[in-house]
C-alpha cells in the first residue's frame, strides 16, 4: 500500500508583535490594529517563508499546504493563490495544496475556477484544490452572513468542478451565482480535474456533501484524540452510503511538530515559538481568553439541529488549545508534538494507526520561530522520522485495508 503522505503546512504568522501583546490586545484577529505591522522588520518575511516551503520540497515532502485568512496575525495569506503561484515556479515535485479558497468570500466562483486552473497548468498538474466555508473571524472580515454561507459554498464548488469538466460555454442557473457564459480558459492540466479537498469540523452536512461527491475530507480540528478516530469512521460510513470505499487517503488531519536531537532540546528550542503561537496567534480563535469569534450565535453557520448537539456537550468556559498552560497539557491535547525523532515517530505512527488517515498535514513553523530552527526541525523530520513513518504506515494500511491493495506506491 501507499505510505502515509507527509505535507508541510505553513501558516505564515506575523512574528514581530510587541512583548506586551497579550496584555494589551483582546484578539489577534479582525480588529488587531495593523499599525502593529513593522515595515522594516517585515521586509523579506514572505521570502523567508516561501524559502522554507521550497526547502520542504527539496527535503522530499509530498507537498506544501497554504490557506486563506484575512485581517489577522495568525496567517498572512489573504490570497494563498499568490504564494501558490510563486511555489509553482520554485518547486519541482511536491503537490501544491491550497486549503483552501474561502468560497463565500469570493464575489464569483468562476474566478476561483480560473485561478486554480492557472495554478494547475503553471505547476504541471501539481495542484490540490481545497475549498473552505470560512469560520467565525472570516464572517466578520467581509460581512458574509453565515446562515447562507453553506448554500453558497456547495453551489460554488459544483460550479467550479463543472467549469473544469464540462465543455463550455454553458449557462449556470443557480440561486447564488447565476452566470450566462461559463467558458473558462485555461482548463486544468489534471484530468478529470485537480483533486478536491474540503475541510470540516465534523458537521454532518459537510461530511454528507463531500462524501456524495467523492472528495477528500480534511478534519480542521487542531487537537487529536478519540474524536479524530470517530471523525474518520464517520466519514468512512458516510462514503459507504454513497457506494464509495474509504481509503486512508480520503481523510487528512492537521497537526504540528517540532523535532530536535533530544526531547529536552526540542522543548528548549521550540518553546518561544510555540507559546507565541498559542498566546498570540490563537487569541481570538481557539483561545478562550479575550474576544473569541470562532463559533456561537454570532456566526450561526451550523444548522440548529447540529447546534443543539453541540450545546449538549458544551462546557461553559472550557479551555481551548490556546489556553494550554504547560508542556504536560500540551502533550494531552495531541496537537503539537515536540521531541526527539524517536518520540515524534512513535506518536505520529500511533496517530496514523488510530485515525487511519493517510494525509498528515504538518505545521513546522510556529509564530515567531527563527528560520534556522524551523529548517532544522524540518530536516530532522525528513531524515529521521519520515522514512520509518512511510515504511511502517505502508504495513499498517496493507494490514487494515487489504481490499485496497491496488493502491500501490506512486512511482
Amino acid at each position: 500500500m501507499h505510505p502515509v503522505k507527509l505535507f508541510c503546512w505553513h501558516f505564515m504568522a506575523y512574528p514581530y508583535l510587541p512583548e506586551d501583546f497579550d496584555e494589551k490586545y483582546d484578539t489577534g484577529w479582525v480588529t488587531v490594529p495593523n499599525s502593529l505591522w513593522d515595515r522594516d522588520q517585515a521586509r523579506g518575511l514572505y521570502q523567508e517563508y516561501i524559502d522554507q516551503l521550497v526547502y520542504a520540497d527539496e527535503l522530499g515532502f509530498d507537498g506544501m499546504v497554504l490557506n486563506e485568512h484575512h485581517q489577522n496575525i495568525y496567517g498572512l495569506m489573504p490570497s494563498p493563490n499568490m504564494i501558490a503561484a510563486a511555489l509553482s515556479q520554485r518547486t519541482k515535485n511536491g503537490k501544491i495544496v491550497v486549503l483552501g479558497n474561502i468560497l463565500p468570500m469570493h464575489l464569483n466562483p468562476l474566478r476561483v475556477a480560473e485561478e486554480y486552473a492557472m495554478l494547475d497548468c503553471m505547476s504541471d498538474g501539481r495542484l490540490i484544490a481545497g475549498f473552505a466555508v470560512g469560520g467565525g473571524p472570516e464572517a466578520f472580515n467581509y460581512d458574509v452572513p453565515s446562515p447562507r454561507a453553506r448554500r453558497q459554498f456547495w453551489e460554488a464548488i459544483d460550479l467550479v468542478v463543472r467549469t473544469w469538466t464540462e465543455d463550455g460555454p454553458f449557462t449556470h442557473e443557480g440561486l447564488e451565482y447565476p452566470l450566462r457564459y461559463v467558458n473558462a480558459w485555461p482548463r486544468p492540466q489534471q484530468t478529470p480535474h485537480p483533486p478536491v479537498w474540503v475541510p470540516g469540523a465534523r458537521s454532518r452536512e459537510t461530511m454528507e456533501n463531500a462524501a456524495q461527491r467523492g472528495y477528500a475530507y480534511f478534519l480542521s480540528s487542531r487537537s487529536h484524540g478519540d474524536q479524530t478516530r470517530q471523525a474518520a469512521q464517520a466519514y468512512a460510513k458516510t462514503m459507504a452510503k454513497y457506494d464509495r470505499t474509504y481509503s486512508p487517503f480520503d481523510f487528512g488531519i492537521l497537526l504540528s511538530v517540532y523535532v530536535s536531537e533530544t526531547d529536552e532540546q526540542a522543548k528548549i528550542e521550540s518553546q518561544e515559538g510555540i507559546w507565541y503561537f498559542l498566546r498570540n496567534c490563537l487569541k481570538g480563535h481557539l483561545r478562550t481568553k479575550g474576544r473569541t469569534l470562532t463559533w456561537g450565535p454570532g456566526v450561526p453557520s451550523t444548522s440548529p439541529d447540529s447546534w443543539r448537539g453541540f450545546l449538549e456537550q458544551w462546557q461553559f468556559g472550557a479551555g481551548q488549545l490556546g489556553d494550554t498552560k504547560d508542556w504536560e497539557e500540551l502533550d494531552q491535547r495531541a496537537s503539537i508534538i515536540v521531541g526527539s525523532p524517536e518520540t515524534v515517530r512513535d506518536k505520529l505512527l500511533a496517530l496514523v494507526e488510530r485515525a487511519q488517515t493517510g494525509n498528515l498535514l504538518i505545521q513546522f513553523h510556529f509564530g515567531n520561530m527563527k528560520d534556522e530552527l524551523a529548517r532544522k526541525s524540518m530536516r530532522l523530520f525528513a531524515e529521521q522520522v519520515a522514512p520509518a513513518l512511510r515504511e511502517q504506515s505502508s504495513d499498517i494500511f496493507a494490514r487494515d485495508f487489504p481490499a485496497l491493495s491496488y493502491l500501490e506506491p506512486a512511482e
Partner: protein
Amino acid sequence: MTSSHIDINGRKVWVTEQGRGTPVIYLHGIADLHGIDAEPGAFHMALGDQCRLIAPAHPGCAASDEDEALETIDDVVFHYLRVLDALDLDRFALAGSSFGGWIAAEIAVRYPERVEKLALIGPTGLAVPGHHIGDIFWYAQPDDGVRYDGLRDLLFEGPKTEIGMAVIPDKKDDIEREMGKYKVFRFASLIGFKPPYLYNPKLRSRLDRYRNPALVMWGAEDNLVPRAHADAYTEGLGDARLETVEGCGHSLIVEAPEQIARSVTNFLNE
C-alpha cells in the same frame, strides 16, 4: 396566551395570541418572546389585556420553520404579507421592538393604508452616517469565555443590570433558551449582517410614505442603536411622537415592561 401554527405554503409559522379588540401585530426582537424567552413576559401580557395581541415568531425562531429562500428584508416583508393573508387581517396596528421594529417600519412604508398605527420600540433599520448600530454578533460569545458583559451592555442599560443578568446569565443557560438565542441570532444575521448591521440603506428615504400616527420609543441608555436613529425615525415619519424612557437600554420591553405596555396602549387608544 395561546400559541399555534399557521401554514404558509407548507411552512409552519408559530403565532401567539391573546385578548380581544383591535388587532395589534407585534414583531419580536432578541431579549423577547420567541427570541431568548419562550414564554410571554409582563409586556406581552399587559398588551394582551388591552387589545388583540398577535405575536408571530420570525422564520426560524421559536417553533417557526426556517425559510430557505429568505435572504433580504424584502423577503421578510413578503413573508409577513402571507402571514397577514392567512390571518385574514386587512387593517391592523403594528408594533415591533429592536429589529422587529425595523420589519414593522418596512411593512408600514410599503402598505401605509393597511397600518393604522405604528409603534416602534428601540427599532434598528436606518443608516445614519456617523452613528453606527452596534455589533451584537461580535459579542455573542462570552468575553474571556466566561462573561457576557459585552452583549448585555448592548442589549440593556449596562453590562450588569439585574434584568440583564437574568436574561443572559454568565453560565450555560437552559438548552431551550440557548437554542432560542441561537435561532434569533441566525435570523437576525440573515437580514442584518450585510450591510453591517441591522439596517436597510433605503428605508430612511421611504419613511415619509407612512402618514398615519406613529410612536417611537427609545431607551435613554440604548447602547446598540444610537439616539440619532430615534430622531431620524421621528423626523422621517409624517406624524410621529418620540418618547424617551429614562433608565432603560435597548431592551425596553423587558427593562420597563409595564411602562412600555401602558404607553403603547395609550397610543393605540388615542
